[in-house]
């Protein structure tokens, strides 16, 4: 067992970068800032690869489960003996996998950004924010304590906010950043309450103990949490569902997904890193982290499954209608995360039943590669045509061959065609779903077909179709931009061959599952159908798309308008919540509370005006009052008030 203390450096290096660049970036190290951040991150990548090597290979005892170990632990905020927010580093297969993904993708994005963001005025700030994000994300995945994860959860949220709002002088970017933060904040409220519920019954905030206490049948905590109930639902289910709500917010699950498409206002590399590969899968990671607890609450697990599959299908449908390429990718991200979610939802606990968990993590892993690839490719395209709209593109394959190829690879991977990365993970997911819930399986299958359709719709529209507006042809991009594309393409192609079942499983024991060819037929066929359909419609200019959308006009419009979810939210928040309650509060404050105070003052003044007549200036009246008061007092004190 090696000493994992060095692992602390993995998040600390980006943090150091953030502080350095944040404080002095604007003035002193501006031009070097990108290089500094990238170099630091490179070290982090190496360290995390080294960790992974040690954890999965070198230190592995054959036949034993992978250990779950808390490498470091520091009582950050001690509430009472035994109940504290501890800052620690938890190593288990998923966290090790995640640090690899996070650092790696982040490195790719850093490198890409060196070229992509060149010349930006806030170059250093950009890298500072990226470093902050990387640090927070690493902290999130390494958390050993449920509150620690919440802390970093918020931090990734704010880095996402800062990066979405990077182009702060665009009102749309500002609005998007606000929206992203507020929606996820709302979800975090659920997360927070969920944490409070779970930790209250478990009596601890540390993951390992919390899970162990809640899961072990017959333990007082477990009994308490399952017997206590609110509104007929056990506290365990409440807690888990609320925690999942937090995860759903961050992972843009229906109906908390509305922020994700708008978040594409940020610089494209940021979208690749945060809103495709890493941060948005935090919700999946969270569920996976608490998976042992979810297992004992079937209701919440089902919620996870249905929300996941609904999001997957829903997003896929919307993606077919969108014209902004980043939005299409965003919806596809949402859809893919839906996959991961429902994969977790359909998992059971055990040797074979645990397939969904592995599949989910596997898909998370592969998705990171190809989705980052797709986003970076999209970034290249956007750089080229200075537009996000599909109609401004077309026929770009010649102008940007590398992008073209890598984008194609990405599309193939996401469509789940063998032997690309997506195929393997998606296969496992569908297999797991098939064995557990046919309805989910059917929806998943349908989604995979639609996925292939809209991805290739995108592909054909960008690179084939009719060339437009090619007035300025400049190079495809700097070498900084090309290298990540290349590396990620390799990943998109080969990531599927990683023996994932041996490493990342629910019970941390190797899972021996192989792809059943028969079960792979249906999705692959569907995917091919989708691709062909896309080819028919978008390879060249023709009227088929309009026709089809004409036929399904109302449905098309519904999907195009994203099923009016945004508008509904807007109505609820603006009109009802903020306007009514806020206005009411304002009114109440002004009229009732303040008015009360002022009325008191006014009454005093008025009374003083009213009684002024007594002071009439007539000395005889004074004497008369004097005498009457004596009489009254005499009566009072002689007879009434003895």
């Amino acid at each position, binding site marked *: 067992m090696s000493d994992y203390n060095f692992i602390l450096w993995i998040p600390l290096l980006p943090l150091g970068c953030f502080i350095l660049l944040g404080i002095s970036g604007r003035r002193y190290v501006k031009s070097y800032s990108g290089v500094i951040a990238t170099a630091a991150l490179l070290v982090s990548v190496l360290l995390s690869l080294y960790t992974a090597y040690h954890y999965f290979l070198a230190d592995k005892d054959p036949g034993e489960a992978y250990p779950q170990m808390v490498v470091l632990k520091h009582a950050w905020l001690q509430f009472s003996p035994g109940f504290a927010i501890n800052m620690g580093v938890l190593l288990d297969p998923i966290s090790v996998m995640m640090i690899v993904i996070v650092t790696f993708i982040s490195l790719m994005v850093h490198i890409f950004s060196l070229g992509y963001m060149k010349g930006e005025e806030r170059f250093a700030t950009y890298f500072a924010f990226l470093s902050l994000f990387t640090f927070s994300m690493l902290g999130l995945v390494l958390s050993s304590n449920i509150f620690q994860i919440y802390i970093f959860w918020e931090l990734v949220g704010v880095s996402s906010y800062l990066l979405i709002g990077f182009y702060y002088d665009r009102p749309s970017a500002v609005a998007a950043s606000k929206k992203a933060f507020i929606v996820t904040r709302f979800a975090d409220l659920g997360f927070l309450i969920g944490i409070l519920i779970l930790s209250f019954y478990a009596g601890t905030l540390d993951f390992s103990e919390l899970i162990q206490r809640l899961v072990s049948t017959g333990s007082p905590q477990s009994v308490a949490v399952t017997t206590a109930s609110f509104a007929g639902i056990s506290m365990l289910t409440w807690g888990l569902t609320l925690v999942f709500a937090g995860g759903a917010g961050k992972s843009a699950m229906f109906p908390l997904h509305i922020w994700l498409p708008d978040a594409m206002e940020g610089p494209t590399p940021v979208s690749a890193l945060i809103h495709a590969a890493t941060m948005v899968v935090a919700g999946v990671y969270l569920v996976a982290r608490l998976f042992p607890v979810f297992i004992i609450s079937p209701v919440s697990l089902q919620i996870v499954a249905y929300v996941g599959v609904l999001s997957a299908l829903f997003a896929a449908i919307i993606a077919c209608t969108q014209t902004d390429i980043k939005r299409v990718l965003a919806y596809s991200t949402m859809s893919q995360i839906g996959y991961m979610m429902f994969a977790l939802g359909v998992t059971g606990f055990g040797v074979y039943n645990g397939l969904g968990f592995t599949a989910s993590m596997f898909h998370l892993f592969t998705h990171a590669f190809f989705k980052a690839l797709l986003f970076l490719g999209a970034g290249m395209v956007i750089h080229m045509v200075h537009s996000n709209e599909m109609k401004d593109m077309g026929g770009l394959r010649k102008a940007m061959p590398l992008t073209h190829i890598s984008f194609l690879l990405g599309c193939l991977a996401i469509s789940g065609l063998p032997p690309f990365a997506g195929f393997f993970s998606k296969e496992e997911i569908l297999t797991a779903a098939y064995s557990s819930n046919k309805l989910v399986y059917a929806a998943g299958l349908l989604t995979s077909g639609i996925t292939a359709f809209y991805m290739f719709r995108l592909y054909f529209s960008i690179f084939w179709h009719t060339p437009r507006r090619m007035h300025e042809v400049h190079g495809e991009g700097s070498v900084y931009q090309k290298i990540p594309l290349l590396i990620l393409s390799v990943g998109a192609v080969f990531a599927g061959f990683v023996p994932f079942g041996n490493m990342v499983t629910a019970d941390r024991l190797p899972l021996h599952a192989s792809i059943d060819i028969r079960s792979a037929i249906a999705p692959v066929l569907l995917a091919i159908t989708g691709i062909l359909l896309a080819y028919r419609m978008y390879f060249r200019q023709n009227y088929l798309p309009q026709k089809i959308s004409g036929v399904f006009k109302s449905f098309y419009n519904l999907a195009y308008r994203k099923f009016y979810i945004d508008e509904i939210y807007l109505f609820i928040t603006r009109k009802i919540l903020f306007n009514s309650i806020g206005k009411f509060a304002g009114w109440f404050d002004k009229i009732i509370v303040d008015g009360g105070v002022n009325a008191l003052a006014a009454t005093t003044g008025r009374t003083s005006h009213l009684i002024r007549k007594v002071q009439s200036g007539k000395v*005889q009246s004074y004497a008369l009052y004097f005498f009457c008061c004596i009489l009254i007092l005499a009566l009072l004190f002689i007879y009434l008030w003895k």
Partner: protein
Amino acid sequence: MSDVPLTHILFVSTALFFTGLYGFFTRRNMISMLMSVELILNSVNINFVAFNKYLYPERLDGIFFTIFIITIAAAEAAVAIAIIINLYRSHGSIDVEDAGELRF
């Protein structure tokens, strides 16, 4: 003297007292107000003397009190009349209703 009960004397003095009060309340001429005050003081004097003679004749407290009251009444009347005369000079009237500039 012993034929008249003390209370009767007290009734007389009380009546005089309240007569004085009534005068003080209603007379608009300052000098008549002053006269009312004299009536009030005299009723008190009657009280003192009557109490002294009827109830506590072993000492002369009441009688002395009366003497001092009379003296002070004189002093008070003198000052009051001086003030009234001064007021008459500035206001041209000794109607108390006319001296009501200071109010509220």
